[in-house]
């Protein structure tokens, strides 16, 4: 079998698996978020929190819950890293406290569902920080994203009320009923493939020619599964999902790709169920699927073609890729991780072809909506849908409406604010980093010092870092030493603002929609469940992203590709 055919079959297998679980999982999640019943374990949790799970919240109260919980998370994770040096060796593995700027960066990163890492996992974080801190945020930051998405969906589904549900209920149910059950099963599948799951310390194992090799133990499989399922992406080890203990074979690799995509895609079904028209969900799904498949096909093509002097000399794009995965599966992983705000990697994007690197960058610039992060992908896509109906409304001269709700001045203002946040953060911080004198010293590849390629490649690395941070992706085009006070602080800010400011606008939008009276459908209503709308939405996304980032892309990947 040719490698290309094997790549196509692997892509087909992932699509088939996703299609198989789409309806059952989507319907189950709709049930979870609309059920009146509370599990006994959940009741205990609500009692401990001191929250009334039946109390309905208007959007400011919902937002306060999100922010209070996230702020507590940041403080807890920051403190845990700062006291690591004082913990017993069995918990810290002997690692010292993390520096203040790096601890802030890491806390912001994991709470913002980004998982940008300016440290090497096996060299810095002991069991306590990994399992009690980082892994917990992998769960709850994902659950927060899903909660906000469900609140927006309720905004469309409900009328003449400002009530959006209860944040604590949504948070706890998402964690207990959705993320944990899938994670337990998924973790065992990964262990069966060979991922490790123990609490051993750093220990020596023998070597065939004599001597020893040092390896870490750790609760790796349990963290790996939620890292993918919650579109988090922060690896236990420096090599992330390329490390054989995280991703042992070709099957586990495809399984991890499946885990990344399963909730973001299936949530479109949940959305359709909750607004009472599953076809509306299919249109969103079609848009997401079209972009994901298109980008993946393009990535596979460029990686198999392996342009670039060094790759041509080697005869293939295997630099920074593992033999057990090969080129095809690595390409699928790369677009999947960058289109979903995950940022886990099974191969290193810095060594991809120039065009391949550009695709990973563009994937993140789309705003992580195809299919996007868990929850954040759905709410990001729904905001784009509002923009798309607005554009369509301007073209035909009618008041735009979506799902029976009028898109008036207030709604379109909120949607516009939402889509302006990340470009402002990305381009602003990149410009600052290039203009100030000291930050560029972190770039290993300036034009004069062509260790890692051209000067354009160095610019791409900085642009990539802020794109990854502000869009909450977290993958890195390594080659940039990001562990400096400047980058730790600015990327940390980009991650927090890029996560929570959009949530403010999304919840305000949800509140505004929920208050409206539904407008009856007429012959002139734009049919948003039809293929035509999916096409319009895809076009709007590509054009808006293209116009926003074209100048920056021209200076980076395009200059590199043409030089």
């Amino acid at each position: 079998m040719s490698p290309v055919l094997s790549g196509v079959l692997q892509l087909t297998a992932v699509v088939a698996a996703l299609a198989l679980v789409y309806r059952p999982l989507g319907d189950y999640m709709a049930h979870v978020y609309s059920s009146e019943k509370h599990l006994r374990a959940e009741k205990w949790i609500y009692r401990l929190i001191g929250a009334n799970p039946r109390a309905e919240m208007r959007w400011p109260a919902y937002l306060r819950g999100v922010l209070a919980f996230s702020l507590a998370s940041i403080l807890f994770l920051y403190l845990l890293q700062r006291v690591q040096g004082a913990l017993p060796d069995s918990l810290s593995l002997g690692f010292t406290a993390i520096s203040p700027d790096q601890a802030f960066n890491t806390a912001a990163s994991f709470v913002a569902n980004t998982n940008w890492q300016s440290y090497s996992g096996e060299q810095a974080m002991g069991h306590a920080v990994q399992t009690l801190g980082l892994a917990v945020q992998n769960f709850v930051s994902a659950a927060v994203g899903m909660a906000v998405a469900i609140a927006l969906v309720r905004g469309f589904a409900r009328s003449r009320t400002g009530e959006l549900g209860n944040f604590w209920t949504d948070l706890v149910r998402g964690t207990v009923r959705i993320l944990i059950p899938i994670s337990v099963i998924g973790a065992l599948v990964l262990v069966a493939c060979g991922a490790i799951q123990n609490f051993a310390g750093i220990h020596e194992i023998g070597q065939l020619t004599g001597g020893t090799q040092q390896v870490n133990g750790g609760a790796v499989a349990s963290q790996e599964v939620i890292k993918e399922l919650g579109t988090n992406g922060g690896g236990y080890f420096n090599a992330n999902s390329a490390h054989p203990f995280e991703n042992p074979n070709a099957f586990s690799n495809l399984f991890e790709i499946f885990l990344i995509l399963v909730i973001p895609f299936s949530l479109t079904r949940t959305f359709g169920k909750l607004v009472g028209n599953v076809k509306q969900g299919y249109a969103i799904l079609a848009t997401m699927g079209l972009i994901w498949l298109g980008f993946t096909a393009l990535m596979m093509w460029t990686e198999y073609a392996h342009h670039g002097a060094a790759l041509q000399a080697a005869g293939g794009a295997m630099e920074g890729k593992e033999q057990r995965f090969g080129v095809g599966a690595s390409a699928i992983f790369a677009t999947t991780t960058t289109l979903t705000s995950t940022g886990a990697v099974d191969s290193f994007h810095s060594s991809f072809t120039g065009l391949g690197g550009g695709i990973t960058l563009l994937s993140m610039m789309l705003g992580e909506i195809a299919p996007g992060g868990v929850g954040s992908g759905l709410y990001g896509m729904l905001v784009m849908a509002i923009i798309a109906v607005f554009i369509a409304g301007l073209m035909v001269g009618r008041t735009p409406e979506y799902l029976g709700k009028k898109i008036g001045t207030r709604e379109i203002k909120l949607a516009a604010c939402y889509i302006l946040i990340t470009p402002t953060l990305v381009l602003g911080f990149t410009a600052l980093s290039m203009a100030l004198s000291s930050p560029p010293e972190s770039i290993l590849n300036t034009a004069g010092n062509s260790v890692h390629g051209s000067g354009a490649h160095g610019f791409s690395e900085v642009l990539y870092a802020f794109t990854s941070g502000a869009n909450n992706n977290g993958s890195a085009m390594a080659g940039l030493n990001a562990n400096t006070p400047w980058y730790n602080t600015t990327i940390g800010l980009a991650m927090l603002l890029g996560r929570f400011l959009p949530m403010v606008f999304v919840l305000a939008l949800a509140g505004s929609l929920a208050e409206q009276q539904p407008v009856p459908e007429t012959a002139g209503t734009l049919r948003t469940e039809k293929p035509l709308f999916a096409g319009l939405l895809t076009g709007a996304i590509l054009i808006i992203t293209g116009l926003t980032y074209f100048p920056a892309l021209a200076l980076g990947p395009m200059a590199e590709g043409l030089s």
Partner: protein
Amino acid sequence: MNISVRSAARVAGAGLRALLVLTVVCGVIYPLVVTGLAQLAFHDKANGSEVKVDGKSVGSSLLGQSYTLDKKDKDGNPLPDPKFFQPRPSAAGPNAENTRYSLLVSGASNLAADSKVLLEAVEKRRTDVAAFNGVSPSAVPVDALTASASGLDPDISPAYARLQAARVAKANGLPAGEVERLVKDHTTGRQLGFMGEERVNVLKLNVALKKLAASR
């Protein structure tokens, strides 16, 4: 004013309590349950898939290791041992951030596709591998010329293993045919026929080779 301060304190308290409860659920109960089940059902895999020869650990079948001589070349790199199959080039190395132990660190070169350094490295590897194995430079496959993503890649391509067979056979005083058969026996096809790439686990192959050489 007083009321809003009190309500802010109440929601902040709820946030903190929610975090602590969920930390116990997701950070203590969940990993302990998974570890317990994993240790019961897949004991060897959960502990790192160690390979044992005569009861002694010789490494993990999932982690690559080096097979080198004590001698070094002019750049200070240890020379490869001709008696063993050689793994892929590795770019993993020490990176002294916040380290108490000098750990086995995973990682890639992160060199760009148009990097001059990478181009030179590829060309040097091609010459070296060809000379070491006594084959033509054009015969060297791509996995022998490029560093892996983890720097711990346990596998090589069947093509690279076959290329090394004659040299390994000669160095061990074994018939070439027997070593080639060994390579064939240790070649793993794509999983379920289509997943990933064909590969040869270097540690398992070298363990079998050592056994074969010792039986002579």
